[in-house]
């Protein structure tokens, strides 16, 4: 008799505490965000600031814009998409995967020529001289920074000379790996990935050498009904996020 009462009491206690637990969890939202690889560092900082400000957590998935978009078309459960271009968010809306009216440019990217092995203070001269075996870029068809790298090479009239030496990474992160591991002497990466490196290692490509990298974000259908997802987008457009974004070398639309 005593055991049964004790068991019943324990059961009720467990039930009520799970109820309390789940209602607490329901208060703290979680936002699932797909982010282009070049924006990894600023995104993590913005996510931390967002959690500190609102209590909602963010879970990020980083990858090449093209790969992420392919997953989104196959119903990947992302709620917000931070692309590296302005093509795919618009495509998402027109294909019914994104919520209309939520597309905006969250950052304007800068592509740089990076090398810890060769002095690239005058990057154009280094490219023209051609004293290197391999130059790494991200896949131009899926990563806008790779496309921008190719465009700048073309602007310098060096396409024929440089093309046989190009090695392609899946993302800007992989292009950076190829350079950092020494396998490629230099490579085109995003400025945010090499912030803080000495000027001899980073050459900021002049803006007229490539079409601007306007990075757009969009709220996806999966996040339409989630207030935390909308809150994250609002935060991304706000002053605190703007400071972080600028800190990592991106421009903002004025």
């Amino acid at each position, binding site marked *: 008799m005593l055991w049964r009462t004790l068991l019943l009491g324990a059961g009720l206690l467990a039930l009520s505490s799970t109820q309390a637990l789940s209602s607490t969890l329901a208060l703290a939202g979680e936002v699932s965000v797909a982010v282009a690889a070049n924006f990894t560092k600023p995104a993590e900082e913005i996510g931390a600031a967002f959690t500190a400000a609102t209590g909602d957590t963010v879970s990020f998935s980083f990858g090449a814009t093209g790969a992420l978009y392919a997953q989104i078309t196959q119903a990947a459960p992302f709620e917000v998409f931070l692309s590296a271009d302005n093509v795919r968010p618009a495509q998402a809306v027109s294909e019914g995967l994104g919520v209309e009216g939520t597309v905006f440019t969250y950052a304007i990217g800068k592509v740089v020529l990076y090398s810890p092995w060769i002095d690239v203070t005058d990057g154009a001269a280094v490219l023209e001289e051609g004293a290197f075996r*391999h130059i790494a870029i991200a896949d131009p068809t899926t990563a806008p920074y790779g496309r921008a790298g190719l465009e700048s090479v073309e602007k310098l009239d060096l396409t024929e000379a440089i093309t046989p030496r*190009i090695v392609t990474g899946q993302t800007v992160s992989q292009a950076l*790996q190829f350079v950092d591991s020494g396998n490629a002497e230099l490579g085109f990466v995003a400025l945010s990935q090499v912030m803080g490196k000495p000027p001899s290692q980073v050459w900021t490509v002049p803006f007229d050498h490539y079409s601007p990298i306007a990075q757009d974000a969009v709220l996806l259908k999966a996040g339409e009904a989630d207030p935390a997802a909308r809150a994250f987008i609002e935060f991304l457009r706000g002053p605190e996020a703007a400071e972080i974004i600028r800190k990592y070398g991106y421009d903002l639309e004025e």
Partner: protein
Amino acid sequence: MLSLSEIVAPVVLSLTLALVVTALLLVIATPIAWWLCRSRWAGKEAVAAVVALPLVLPPTVLGFYLLIALGPNGPGGAIASLWGARTLAFSFEGLVLGSVIYSLPFMVQPLRNAFEALGEEPIEAAHTLGASRWQTFFRVAVPLARTGYMAGAVLTFAHTVGEFGVVLMIGGNIPGKTKVLSIAIYDYVERLEWGNAHMLAAGMVVFAFVVVTAVTMIERRVGNR
């Protein structure tokens, strides 16, 4: 639609890589498997575990360490400088090296099992009949272990054709040199060119089916003689 050259190049590359790696491993794995079978050394199972590591390690881990090892700061750079290159990454030779390491257990395990299945009697019989150790190995042990060789060759070949993670890490996606079939299919998927991806992938499935069936049939004939 895929042009013929877009199909042929990665297919030929994958097949060439698989053939070269299989041939190399037939030679490299034989002494390893024989030693693992015949040795009485206490540490031999530790060696067996090291050989089997690529079975368990994720290909991206292997690829990551290979990227460092093949580069100018690693042994790969030293080897590459023999013919004036900086690094073994981004080259067919680098892929061969990576694939040999990656597929090593797929050749060693079947060979070791086949050698162990021989037992002592055929070896002892050959010795009593006056055969030298080389003669015993090449004229008694190897022919008796031929099903192990077939199994190892098929597994290694198939495993190398399907290789993706390692090539992704060290290949650099260079058409004609390191853009193998699995990478080409992945590229098409990423670009949402699913029609092309279907074509290449379906071709791969058909090929794999034909190869496995053919080898199984050959195994039956050869094994039952």
